[in-house]
């Protein structure tokens, strides 16, 4: 089985860019397979994701938009893959946390999702006074 722990699938070149950023920051880009939905109909997005999951043995999928075709494809695959976990709304802090943490029992996915959520802040001039 490959060393890839998760698939990142998103619009345009977003997944590739996020994985490349993980590699630059932490040297752990090889833990992810990056996929795009570019130029693909719904059935082909699902087929591409399924093939990547089969090939890598990964059990985790990160997607970008809740209503997007990548998320829909991942949710579609959940029906036949009870062990699969899908995290919607991927961001860089989330992927970094996942790359640098490996917890037995798979709690690392939930922790990474929480880190991603916590990382979102609104910073204004009041916060630096």
């Amino acid at each position, binding site marked *: 089985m490959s060393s890839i722990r998760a698939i990142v699938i998103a619009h345009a070149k977003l997944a590739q860019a996020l994985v490349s950023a993980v590699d630059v920051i932490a040297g752990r880009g090889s833990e992810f397979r990056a996929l795009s939905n570019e130029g693909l109909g*719904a059935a082909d997005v699902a087929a591409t994701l399924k093939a990547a999951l089969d090939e890598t043995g990964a059990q985790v999928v990160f997607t970008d*938009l809740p209503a997007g075709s990548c998320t829909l494809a991942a949710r579609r695959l959940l029906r036949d893959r009870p062990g699969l976990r899908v995290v919607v709304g991927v961001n860089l802090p989330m992927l970094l946390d996942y790359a640098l943490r490996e917890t037995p029992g798979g709690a690392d996915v939930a922790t990474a999702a929480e880190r991603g959520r916590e990382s979102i802040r609104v910073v204004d001039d009041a916060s630096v006074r």
Partner: protein
Amino acid sequence: MLWTTPVSVELYRIDDRLIHGQVVVGWGKPLGAEFIALVDDEVAASDWEQDLYRMGVPPEMDVYFDSIESAVARLPDYVADQRRGILLTGDIETMRDLASRSGMIEYVNIGGVHHRPGRHERLRYVFLTPQEEEQLREIAHGGVEVSAQDVPSAAPIPLEEVLASRGSA
């Protein structure tokens, strides 16, 4: 015309991804769409598929699922609805049938028909078989304005230009 006629179905769109980012965010936000009517016989027959599509849509947006049959019957209600809406089909044939049977559609947007064996590239997001090209012509011959436009900020490309295009536009 899409932007000038005050009807509540603002967009009749052919998109093989059905409900996805471009529709919900790209079109839904600027149009102020409050409902989506998804017309697809297969989805209309499957609760599981309907749950899948409904889950991705923001809570303030309603989604209605129709077969071609039920869509023909309900289209007058959608058009009379006080809210703005988007009607989606996953393929050209469904839109053709709906347009010809209802006689209520004035404008059809080709939003995404992606690559599949047997289809030829016309635009970056439009690949067509000869049969699908004919179906689009049939829609247009019925007096419907047909153009391709993936996102609102792009210029609509009239059907004849789409069919004359050799791809990568």
